[in-house]
């Protein structure tokens, strides 16, 4: 603590020193000093040679023989001095043409702005927004100079902090924006909203100053990952289009299925264990065209936060991750539009004020060009998808604000080959939310959300006659979340959720067929509370507790099974609650800051998942989704997770390390060759297993300046103790891919070019490799002795994109860009499956044999989805 305070004093002194001594010592002069493991004396001598600055110190105080390393290339003298002395516990101040060095001393603490301990406390609160389009900046830092207090804006750009009466320097910061500081004479409650300017050039290397580091607890990368717009836009889909889900896949701990798939797995969790929220509303299938595109148009998105453990206490219901997506509000000052045209899609966005500075709207439509492209070659094929975002927001007064959001996405794939009857697939996501922000006081913020979401899946076997198989899941929910800031040390969250879920777990069209597969409705009540408590400047404790009451509601029909999964009874449940679960989900996180750049976090969280996607598919694509609630037969999945992490900030670099261990009870496995479609006894196909997952994640990144990079490595395992063949009783999951390495490089030139290179490597997916074969009626049939005993070849891929701004004038109202992208630049055919049941035709294709009059020569084959794909995307923005 002493050391930290001394460091603060250093800065204060140094600040004074800069103002008063600038004429005698030029601290802006840029110098290069490279001294590795040299004595302090030698390093000071080197600086003296390059600047003429003399250093004065007492040998009894300062150990000038201690070995130090200083590497600074073309940096201002002030930064070089800070870099050298901040790690040595040395104060420095300027006197005439010399710098006086002193050992840190507690007495100097009196220089800190005096805080009257008994004085009255006042609050500072407000919003932080983008100065151009007025979009709120979520997760912006608000730091108080020379204190360890700080705040981070919430999902609505709001912050609040309580401080004793006094004078303070507030600094507002956000990655990619210029910092803004102001002096506040705090003698009463203050409302201070700030508009930050974008740092368009990003050419200057931004030195992380003390103020930016002050919010080390609030913006803890070990607890949440914030994807900014550049990171979202730098992750490309297969045709060069920015892809939201792909941007998540680049993160450590997140494992993707592979090419052409929107499926992802977080820390060994299954694909249905990720909660994706758009403006507080869940989306159950974020994919278009089986998964080749994600259903979330990047142009509509303002901010994405990803949590892999210790979700904010208001969220739950999934075990592995929370993807919290907030859409843009729309510009309250002026109209704008943008158009993005890629080879396969077009995206059109318009936004602007309804009433200036009071209300705004934003509309984004993304539509595919697929029908237009394929009409000539496949005239009987109808392939199309779209997604549509609409948002209104209205400032009623300073204390009240309303948001209305709508998301609708749809896919249709249909066609016919030889008959007049057409078949097809279709799925739709629809979500609506109405949110009300209310300030009870400057210390108490609330958000009430009424939302509804529905996901429908159709499998048409005769579109002409409208015959289909369909499933759906829907919800209607009301929730209120309160944020209370009683003092600088505590940030309290509490609230409730009331959720109603309704299901169709897969039935033929009701006009012609009676329902055969049942699932009752569910009413869920959730209460939660949590606190983020800063014990002192080094220690922060976050803790929370959720109580969930899950109630299955009739009327419906249910089947009961014995221990051998044979159906024993049919229950006709009447209207009302017929089965309930209650669960408590605690979480706690301890963060210890050794200094402003080194943070350690230890956490535990428990989650229970009551909603399940029933699927025994090993396909990269989403198909025939059946969601089923926990009930008398289907047990809830339960997770306990322990995480230890360390993060270190080195100037403009960040290093993160995390290791985790988690256990999952009632992990979903399935009966051999489970019958998942149109099976009234589908619940009897589930086999409950135990699973454990563990791993380590490392990342090294630079997010500031013209050159950015991210290196990340993940080691992760997921092992199941279940019902499948295995000599040890424990086998890996199909998506158990132990190694993942990701390298992302970003470079913005001083001109108009931006370059991005992304290389990803991971272990191959696991599959069960036959240990023998037998022949039955001519069929060659595999025999398996070990579940998931083999791996597909390792996956790796290199992508490249170059973005050219077509404007010479950076301030032009019309801005347009050309994006040249190459997906899978070295044309690697990454296998998604291995098969051993096909024959090779004379044309060199591979087909399943149908003629059993003679022996067939079976070959082993592998399938891949994409080779090299070049693309050009044009985008136009008007503001």
């Amino acid at each position, binding site marked *: 603590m002493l050391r930290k305070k001394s460091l603060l004093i250093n800065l204060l002194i140094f600040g004074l020193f800069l103002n008063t001594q600038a004429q005698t010592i030029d601290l802006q002069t840029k110098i290069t000093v490279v001294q590795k493991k040299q004595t302090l004396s030698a390093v000071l001598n080197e600086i003296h040679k390059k600047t003429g600055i003399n250093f004065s110190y007492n040998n009894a105080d300062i150990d000038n023989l201690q070995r130090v390393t200083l590497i600074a290339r073309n940096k201002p003298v002030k930064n070089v001095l800070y870099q050298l002395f901040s790690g040595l516990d040395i104060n420095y101040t300027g006197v005439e043409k010399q710098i006086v060095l002193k050992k840190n001393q507690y007495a100097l603490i009196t220089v800190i702005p005096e805080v009257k301990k008994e004085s009255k406390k006042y609050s500072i609160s407000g919003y932080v927004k983008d100065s151009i389009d007025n979009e709120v900046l979520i997760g912006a830092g608000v730091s108080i100079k020379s204190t360890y207090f700080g705040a981070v804006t919430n999902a609505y750009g709001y912050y609040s902090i309580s401080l004793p009466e006094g004078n303070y320097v507030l600094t507002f910061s956000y990655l990619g924006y210029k910092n803004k500081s102001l002096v506040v004479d705090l003698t009463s409650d203050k409302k201070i909203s700030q508009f930050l300017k974008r740092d368009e050039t990003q050419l200057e290397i931004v030195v992380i100053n003390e103020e930016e580091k002050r919010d080390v607890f609030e913006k803890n990368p070990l607890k949440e990952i914030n994807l900014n717009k550049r990171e979202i836009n730098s992750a490309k889909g297969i045709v060069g289009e920015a892809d939201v889900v792909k941007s998540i896949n680049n993160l450590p701990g997140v494992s993707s299925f592979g090419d*052409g798939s929107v499926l992802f797995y977080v820390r060994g969790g299954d694909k249905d264990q990720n909660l994706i929220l758009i403006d507080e509303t869940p989306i159950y299938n974020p994919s278009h*065209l089986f998964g080749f595109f994600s259903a979330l148009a990047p142009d509509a998105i303002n901010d994405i936060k990803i949590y892999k453990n210790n979700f904010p206490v208001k969220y739950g219901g999934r075990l592995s991750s929370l993807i919290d997506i907030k859409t843009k509000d729309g510009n309250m000052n002026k109209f704008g539009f943008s158009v993005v045209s890629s080879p396969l899609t077009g995206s059109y966005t318009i936004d602007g004020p309804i009433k200036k500075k009071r209300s705004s709207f934003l509309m984004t439509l993304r539509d595919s060009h697929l029908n237009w492209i*394929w009409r000539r070659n*496949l005239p009987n094929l109808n392939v199309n998808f779209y997604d549509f975002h609409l948002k209104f927001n209205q400032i009623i007064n300073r204390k009240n604000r309303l948001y209305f959001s709508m998301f609708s996405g749809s896919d249709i794939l*249909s*066609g016919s*080959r030889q*008959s007049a009857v057409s078949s*097809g697939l279709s799925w739709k996501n629809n979500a609506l939310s109405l949110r009300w922000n209310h300030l009870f006081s400057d210390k108490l913020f609330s958000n009430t959300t009424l939302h509804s979401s529905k996901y429908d899946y159709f499998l048409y*076997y005769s579109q002409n006659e409208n015959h289909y198989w369909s499933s759906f899941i829907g919800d209607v929910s009301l929730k209120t979340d309160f944020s209370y800031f009683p003092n600088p040390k505590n940030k309290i969250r509490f609230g409730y959720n009331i959720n109603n879920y309704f299901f169709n777990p897969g039935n033929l069209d009701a006009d012609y067929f009676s329902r055969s597969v049942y699932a009752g409705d569910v009413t869920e009540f959730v209460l939660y509370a949590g606190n983020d408590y800063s014990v002192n400047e080094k220690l922060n404790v976050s803790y929370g507790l959720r109580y969930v009451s899950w109630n299955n509601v009739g009327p419906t029909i249910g089947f009961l099974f014995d221990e051998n999964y044979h159906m024993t009874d049919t229950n006709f449940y009447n209207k009302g609650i017929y089965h309930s679960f209650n669960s408590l989900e605690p979480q706690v996180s301890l963060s210890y800051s050794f200094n402003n750049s080194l943070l350690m976090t230890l956490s535990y969280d428990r989650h229970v998942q009551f909603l399940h996607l029933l699927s*025994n*598919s*090993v*396909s*990269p694509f989403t*198909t025939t989704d059946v969601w089923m609630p926990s009930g008398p037969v289907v047990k809830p999945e339960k997770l306990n997770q322990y995480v230890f992490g360390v993060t270190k900030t080195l100037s403009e670099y960040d290093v993160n390390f995390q290791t985790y261990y988690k256990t999952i009870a009632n992990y979903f496995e*399935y009966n*051999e*060759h489970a*019958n*998942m*479609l149109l099976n009234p006894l589908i619940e009897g196909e589930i086999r409950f297993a135990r699973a454990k997952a563990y791993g380590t994640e490392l990342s090294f990144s630079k997010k500031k300046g013209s050159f950015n990079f991210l290196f990340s490595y993940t080691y992760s395992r997921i092992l199941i103790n279940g019902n*499948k063949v295995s000599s040890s009783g424990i086998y890996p999951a*199909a998506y158990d891919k132990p190694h993942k390495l990701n390298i992302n490089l970003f470079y913005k030139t001083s001109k108009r070019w931006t370059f991005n290179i992304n290389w990803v490597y991971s272990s191959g997916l696991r*599959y*069960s*490799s*036959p*240990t*023998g*074969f*037998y*022949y*039955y*009626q001519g*069929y*060659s*049939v595999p025999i398996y*002795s*070990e579940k998931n*005993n*083999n791996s597909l070849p390792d996956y790796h891929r290199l992508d490249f994109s170059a973005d050219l701004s077509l404007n010479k004038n950076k301030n032009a109202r019309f801005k347009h860009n050309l994006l040249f992208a190459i997906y899978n630049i070295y044309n690697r*055919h990454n296998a998604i499956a*291995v*098969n*051993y*049941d096909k*024959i090779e035709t004379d044309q060199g*294709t591979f*087909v*399943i044999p*149908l*003629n059993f*009059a003679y022996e067939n020569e079976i070959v*082993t084959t*592998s*399938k*891949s*989805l994409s080779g090299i*794909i070049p693309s050009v995307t044009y985008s136009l923005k008007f503001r």
Partner: protein
Amino acid sequence: MKIKQHNSLYFIFFGIIFFSGISCEKKIDVDFKNDGKEFLIVDGMMTNENKNQIIHLSQSVTSLNSKPLPVLGADILVSDGIVAYLFKEDTLGRYVSELKFSALINKLYTLNIEYENKTYTAQARAIPVLSQNSLNYVRYNDSLYHFPQAVAEFNPNEAAMYEVNADWSFVSGYENFSENETHAKMFFYILKTIDVNEIFHPAYEQIYFPKGTKLTVKKYSLSPDHEKFVRSLLLETQWNGGFFDTEEDNVYTNLSEGAFGFFAVSNVLSDSIIVQ
């Protein structure tokens, strides 16, 4: 009610994938995790045809395309609870009942195999076969015909298997072709269940035959247990290898002691037609 449009769905998906030119399938070498274990394989179906019933016994193989070794010297007995029918080894691995008999509907038949000091058993029961549904061939071009339907069709009211033997070795112009080029044996199924990878099945071999081909069609009833085996078999063979595969697992069997294959009892209808 039958759902027949699966080929269209296959066409939709593969139209997208292949027309876009981004997918690829290639031949590879796979290191099968051979553990050296060998299993007894049983392939036997008793029918209501009054004949010497046949059961094939073989051993599993440890590599793809290996010739299976026949199982010699096994003692086989099939009993209906009252009468026991002995089987004797005919040719290598082929066992034939000493007496002709027809398997009766709803009667429980028990298979008993004694081999290398182990006793393998299985039980099966036949259900009636419904009247022959039409299995339509259609004209492919001016001179050739084929069966357009998928390998399996969904029918919630019936489960059955069609065995189709096609012979055009005697058709004018084909007399000098080899046997492999003038014969085909195909299986088609009607199942009460439907699966995703059945709908999005992989590409199939196309079999064309000329006008004048003799088609011998046998329709077998499938008991629930037999249907379960067939579905499981198709999941690991003819429905496997598309883009919507499900988890691999051993094919269901009604045999004990770790043997694979299936012992079935079925009712059968036969028909012969000449392609016109």
